[in-house]
Every structure is written in C-alpha cells, then in structure tokens.
C-alpha cells in the first residue's frame, strides 16, 4: 500500500540558510500534518492543512511557513536556519473522516 512520502530524507544546511521539505500524502488523503521531533523528544505539532487550507497551528516559528498545493502535497519552508532547528521533521496524512494519521519516514535536518 502507498505510504506518505517525504523528501529529502536527509538534509544538511548551514546556519542562516533556507530549507524546503516536501511531503506527498497517501492518495486520497486530504489532510497533512507537520511535526518536529528533536533528539529524545516527543513529536511537536507545527501545522496542519485540510483541503489546502491551514486547519490548525502549533508551535511553528515565524521563520517557517508551509502550504498545501492543489495536488495535496505539502511543503515546509524554513528560513534563517538555526542550530536548534536540527531535528527529524515528520509529515503525516489522514482522511478527514478517519481519525488516524499515517506518518512518513521523516526528513532529518542537520544545521551546521
């Protein structure tokens, strides 16, 4: 069965650079979620989109922005990167009428 696809899987950026993370949800899923997981931490909710509109917002820094496109894929844009942004970034998707979300394998971002 198709799963959530995230790209790239690994990314190394320097401080103050910009990064773009991509997420392709499971086909027919209309909701996308972004989470940040630091080392040894639980996943922290950043933002979600339902039918291409922002549906909920968590602790997402102002330096980050995201959107969901007409084909339902989503991109997380991160600017002015800081060392503390180094983390595993998960995307998840769900069907609005179904309660569970399915996660991608994550993008490991390292800021040096």
């Amino acid at each position, binding site marked *: 069965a198709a799963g959530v696809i995230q790209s790239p899987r690994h990314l190394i950026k320097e401080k103050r650079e910009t990064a773009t993370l991509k997420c392709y949800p499971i086909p027919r899923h209309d909701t996308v979620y972004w989470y940040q997981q630091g080392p040894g931490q639980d996943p922290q909710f950043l933002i*979600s989109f339902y039918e291409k509109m922002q*549906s*909920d917002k*968590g602790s997402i820094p102002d330096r980050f922005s995201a959107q969901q496109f007409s084909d339902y894929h989503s991109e997380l844009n991160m600017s002015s990167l800081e060392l503390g942004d180094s983390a595993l970034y998960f995307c998840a998707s769900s069907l609005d009428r179904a309660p*569970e979300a*399915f*996660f991608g394998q994550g993008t490991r971002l390292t800021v040096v």
Partner: protein
Amino acid sequence: AQTVTQSQPEMSVQEAETVTLSCTYDTSENNYYLFWYKQPPSRQMILVIRQEAYKQQNATENRFSVNFQKAAKSFSLKISDSQLGDTAMYFCAFRASGTYKYIFGTGTRLKVLA
C-alpha cells in the same frame, strides 16, 4: 488545553511475556480519539492501535490491546507475547474530534529481552 502524560520513561520485558504501558490524558472534550504509535530505532512512526472515546469496548489488534477508562482518563496499552521486534519507543497520542492535530506524550522506551 489537552495534555498527555506517560509516566514510565523506560520499561523492559522478557520475550513472550506481557507488558502494560500507561498513559493518562487531560481534556474537557467529550469526543476524541486516542492512539498508540510505535517508533522503532528506524524512527518511523507506526500506528499500533486507536480508540474512539464514544466506544466503551476496548480496541484490540492482534497482540495489542488497550484498557480505556474514560472517567479516569486513562489509556494503557497491553502487549501480549512480546517479541524482540516490539522493542521501540511507544507514544500515546490524543486528537480531539473536529481538530487537526495530534498531541503526543513523552514516550515510553520499551526493550524486549531475549
């Protein structure tokens, strides 16, 4: 605001035995969902089991079952016949109906011993 608490940072169990992981949550919502996710060393987040708050019957998925106590706001996970592949971090998660975010607990690291 909703919170999810997992009070057991680490647990271990012998292969083939049973282990129970605890989770409590706090919410004023009446309609919500609860989940257990597993994160093995690969760090992939894998859905283990889900429970709808309106259902009194406890969810079961093969060797995994939950004990859902709505009044006590408790949602524990029982793993029967533990296998080495069950070694992972287990996260309890909450989603209020009509919202688009999942709130995770801090996780329990489970080690299955041969």
